[in-house]
């Protein structure tokens, strides 16, 4: 076996140009796979971090309250009882926060801005403080009554700055419009699509706006240690809440604001809870990621197909050149499987070494791009939730890239190698 490896490596070295061309192509595909996967991973991680801070917990218990069958308010009544039920069911997470929710508009002297209204208790939102980048103002002032935080673009559109007053208006669950006077305390850096339509304010603003009791809120966000457990925890929460006598909405993988219209049309009154996960609430991000991943895999698939053809062609050329050698070795008593193994090992050495080199090079490119803090244009910023491209190298992805590309390109050599192995020795020896 060592001799077969030696033959393989020496043949690859002997045909330097051919090996470099094919190996380079394999390495290039691996680099692309590693880099694109890192972009995808980086996007996902950033979206998850930012999205689950601004718009959603990993698991959310929210819902709608309907006073009449024709209206719908994004409200949860008696949330302390819900928290108790979750606690009794053993659902804790690393943090649980309670946020107000609404849909209304902010009015300044010159313009209005429609959007999702989020009421927060900033002192209990450490992650929020970490994620939001303050441009002007002081985040601690969000704990003051009637404090509002706007993102840069919103502030620009409304032509307001820190210290200016704005008016919030929204229809209450009683069906009349209510208003609350607020003061802009913080202007934060834009954070992609979410910052375009989300406006944050002190929790008391929403309680006033919707005339809610202190035991009412918009949503309970549960942050888990492992976000991959979200579906499991959501199912556990649904079961516990159902058992405790709460009425639950059917699970629909959509963010809460997309459910307004359908809930309004439904013929029921009272409180219904909606248990969702971060993937439901950040549905649009998930779709962007899925599309990006799909495009990545299609692209890599096409590249891989080209490489497979290249490997097969190269192996056929190599085998043709070495037909007499095959005949000699077969005459000496080399078994067919050894001949097959000899060429497959050669392809395997080239494929795996090239894929490994490509993977390492890809890791280098990822590090370089991260170090360069590569600026992305506004269109990308919308779904990246960042103004720089943040790539995240996943070691598992790099290992899988080497394994898959190495294996596929090695397997591509099996057919021509088998044909070589099947060649009768007498024919092979006489090959000119």
């Amino acid at each position, binding site marked *: 076996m060592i*001799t077969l490896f030696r033959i393989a490596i020496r043949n690859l070295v002997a045909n330097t140009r051919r090996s470099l061309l094919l190996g380079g192509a394999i390495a290039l595909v691996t680099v692309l796979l590693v880099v694109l996967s890192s972009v995808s991973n980086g996007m996902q991680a950033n979206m998850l971090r930012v999205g689950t801070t601004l718009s959603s917990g990993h698991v959310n218990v929210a819902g709608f309250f309907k006073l009449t069958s024709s209206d719908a308010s994004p409200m949860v009544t008696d949330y302390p009882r819900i928290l108790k039920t979750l606690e009794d069911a053993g659902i804790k997470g690393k943090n649980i926060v309670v946020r107000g929710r609404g849909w209304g508009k902010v009015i300044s002297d010159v313009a209005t801005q429609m959007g999702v209204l989020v009421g927060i208790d900033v002192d209990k939102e450490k992650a929020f403080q970490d994620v939001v980048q303050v441009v002007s103002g002081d985040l601690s002032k969000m704990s003051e009554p009637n404090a509002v935080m706007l993102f840069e673009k919103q502030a620009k559109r409304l032509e307001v700055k820190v210290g200016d007053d704005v008016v919030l208006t929204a229809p209450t669950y009683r069906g009349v419009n209510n208003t609350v006077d607020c003061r802009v305390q913080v202007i934060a850096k834009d954070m992609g699509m979410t910052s375009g339509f989300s406006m944050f304010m002190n929790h008391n603003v929403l309680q006033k706006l919707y005339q809610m009791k202190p035991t009412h809120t918009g949503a309970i966000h549960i942050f888990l240690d492992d976000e991959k457990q979200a579906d499991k925890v959501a199912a556990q929460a649904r079961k516990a809440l159902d058992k405790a006598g709460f009425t639950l909405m059917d699970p629909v993988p959509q963010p809460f604001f997309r459910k307004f219209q359908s809930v309004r049309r439904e013929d029921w009154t009272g409180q219904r809870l909606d248990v969702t996960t971060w993937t439901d609430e950040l549905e649009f991000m998930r779709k962007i990621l899925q599309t990006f991943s799909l495009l990545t895999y299609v692209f890599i698939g096409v590249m891989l197909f080209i490489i497979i053809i290249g490997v097969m062609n190269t192996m056929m050329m190599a085998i043709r050149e070495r037909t007499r050698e095959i005949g000699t070795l077969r005459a000496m*008593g080399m*078994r067919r499987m050894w001949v097959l193994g000899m060429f497959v090992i050669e392809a395997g050495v080239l494929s795996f070494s090239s894929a490994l080199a490509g993977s390492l090079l890809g890791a280098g490119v990822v590090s370089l791009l991260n170090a360069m803090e590569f600026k992305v244009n506004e269109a990308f910023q919308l779904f990246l939730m960042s103004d720089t491209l943040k790539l995240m190298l996943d070691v598992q992805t790099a290992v899988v890239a080497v394994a898959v590309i190495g294996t596929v390109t090695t397997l591509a050599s099996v057919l021509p190698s088998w044909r070589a192995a099947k060649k009768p020795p007498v024919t092979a020896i006489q090959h000119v």
Partner: protein
Amino acid sequence: MSTPSRDAIVRLSGVQKIYKLGKVEVPALKGIDLEINAGDFAVIAGPSGSGKTTLLNLIGCVDVATTGTVMVDGHDTGTLSESALTRLRLEHLGFIFQSFNLVAVLDAFDNVEFPLLLQGKLNKAERRERVEDIMASVGLTDYMHHRPNELSGGQRQRVAVARALVTKPRIVMADEPTANLDSQTGHQIIDLMKKLNQEEGTTFIFSTHDPKVMSQADRSIELIDGLVASSEVADDGRLDTPQTALV
């Protein structure tokens, strides 16, 4: 057909080999009856197209006869499976080729060691000892780690001889082993083969056009048009140069 010899290591009876070139059938061997005894230093002579290489291929088990029986070291090659033929070649036969056919990327030592690796019978130290001994006997001790492209034609053929003999085969087949060498080097190779034939008792069967090389053989089989034209055994271990112009 003559009475079978008890010492015959190769025995062919009624052997025909017909190649098909499209719809045309080309008979290469038209009915060969032949015996070669163990320890013979046998030459197969004849003009181009007479069937020398075909006959060597059949005896060397790299091809099978269309009709007739080919017995090699007691095995009827026509009844053996492909893998059994491969095993037979590995265990009982050695090959020397006109163009040396060494593995270009391996050095002389590795080329000679290769058949032992295929056999898988000896450990590393035993293989090394065996290879060094055979390399010494072909006079290439100082060239063991030279690659084929660093050796002369004669040295390459010596490596090929060593590779053919390293497994201690019963029969060594050589298809025009001196054709690509100058006459002096060619004679050195034949002398070497003859020496090993006498010392080890290995049966050598080789083809050639060269009358001087033929004269070294103690057994001569002349083929013409796919038939044995003459079969001669030297009494003194050396044949007279044949009268036929074998070109």
